[in-house]
């Protein structure tokens, strides 16, 4: 393949380089259109404002705050993510670029590029939502380090889970509804773990060994590994 006129790849070409090309293209395209960012942030900000005004920091008893705040935070993050992350593959189909991408890139490189892009979106979402939520709700966190790592690792899991579902629903009808229906059972164990972890972090008790963080990390690794095997089959259909 490297001899003759048809030198289709350079010697230094790797999945990572190709995935980075997909990621950079998606980030650049999103920066110019702001379609997914707007969808996610509008949902997140309106939900956050609705929650903070209707519940606020004073309607919940102190003893219930660690658990309820963790639930509210993850409800906002997960459902905001659902509103925009499905776009990563759907936009290729709608714009008519899917076939050209299929004929140009290796499937796993595309998956990794899209995963990086969704993680970038989630990172931006968490960067805005988490501090705002803490500020609006007066969220006291005893173990800040554990809380931060929990939010980051659960974000990785959320990105990994939703990216493969986004690929699966691309060529179906009623994509938006199907994305939520398929993603929710997949994400639920992670969401419960993240809620438990954030509650523990707020209380500052029994955080030794960061068990929820390890579960979220294991979930992420399993989800990415399974997706890398599954994605080429989805991509070819």
């Amino acid at each position, binding site marked *: 393949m490297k001899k003759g006129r*048809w030198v*289709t790849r350079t010697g230094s070409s790797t999945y990572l380089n*190709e995935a980075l*090309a997909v990621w*950079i293209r998606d980030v*650049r395209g999103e920066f*110019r259109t702001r379609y997914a960012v707007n969808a996610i942030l509008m949902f997140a900000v309106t939900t956050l404002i609705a929650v903070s005004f209707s519940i606020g920091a004073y309607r919940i008893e102190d003893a219930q705050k660690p658990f309820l705040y963790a639930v509210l935070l993850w409800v906002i993050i997960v459902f905001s993510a659902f509103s925009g992350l499905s776009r990563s593959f759907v936009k290729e189909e709608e714009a008519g*670029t899917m076939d050209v991408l*299929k004929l140009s890139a290796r499937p796993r490189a595309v998956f990794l590029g899209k995963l990086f892009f969704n993680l970038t979106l989630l990172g931006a979402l968490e960067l805005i939502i988490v501090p705002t939520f803490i500020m609006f709700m007066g969220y006291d966190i005893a173990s800040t380090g554990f809380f931060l790592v929990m939010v980051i690792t659960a974000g990785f899991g959320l990105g990994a889970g939703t990216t493969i579902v986004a690929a699966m629903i691309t060529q179906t009808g009623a994509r938006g509804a199907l994305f939520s229906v398929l993603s929710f059972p997949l994400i639920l164990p992670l969401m419960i773990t993240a809620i438990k972890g954030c509650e523990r972090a707020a209380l500052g008790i029994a955080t030794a060994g960061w068990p929820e963080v390890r579960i979220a990390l294991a979930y992420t690794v399993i989800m990415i590994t399974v997706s890398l095997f599954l994605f080429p089959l989805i991509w070819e259909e």
Partner: protein
Amino acid sequence: MNERNQYSIKVDNISKHFTGNLLFKGISFQLICGDVLAIAGWNGSGKSTLLRIIAGLMRPSAGDVEIFHKGTPISKDERPFFLGMVAPAFSLYNELTGIENLAFFHKVRGLSYERQGCLTLLDRVGLTVEADKLYGKYSSGMKQRLKLIQAILHKPPLLLLDEPGSNLDSKGMAVIEDIINEQRLFGMTIIASNEKREVGYADRIINLSE
């Protein structure tokens, strides 16, 4: 074995039907480097579908497509890197400029990217001045020219052209002729079209309406 015989394609008894409706059946042919084949037929006869099957974008209902390099079949995973395709349904990225599109397809194909090299390619289709304009703001003819360049930038052994002349003026048609003539020296070309001029580039014609 000389250069002309390094690549070949064998399309063996391909059939396609959608929900019980037969589109075409028993399509077989073989091409070697230098061959140009035209696929003609009425609208809806399955020209574009046949090209999609050859490209590996769609599964046939029956039959098989194999691309060979020095007699050895190329795996289906590798097939995209041995072909370039242009089709009316294809689009490049509207939110990227012409040259950014080329840069992306260079990188994602694992090719080394140089701006000057891309400008040379754009010059070939008369788009140098529009290099930094968003693809979404190109005219339909300009989009078609960029799609042609995107399809050949990795110098594929097999070039699939679905209605390549759509939206092109006489200068654009001259570019297509130039690309097909170059491809004739080093690779294989399959053109799906009903336009006399485009079909005229081919050595052989398969008519799906017959």
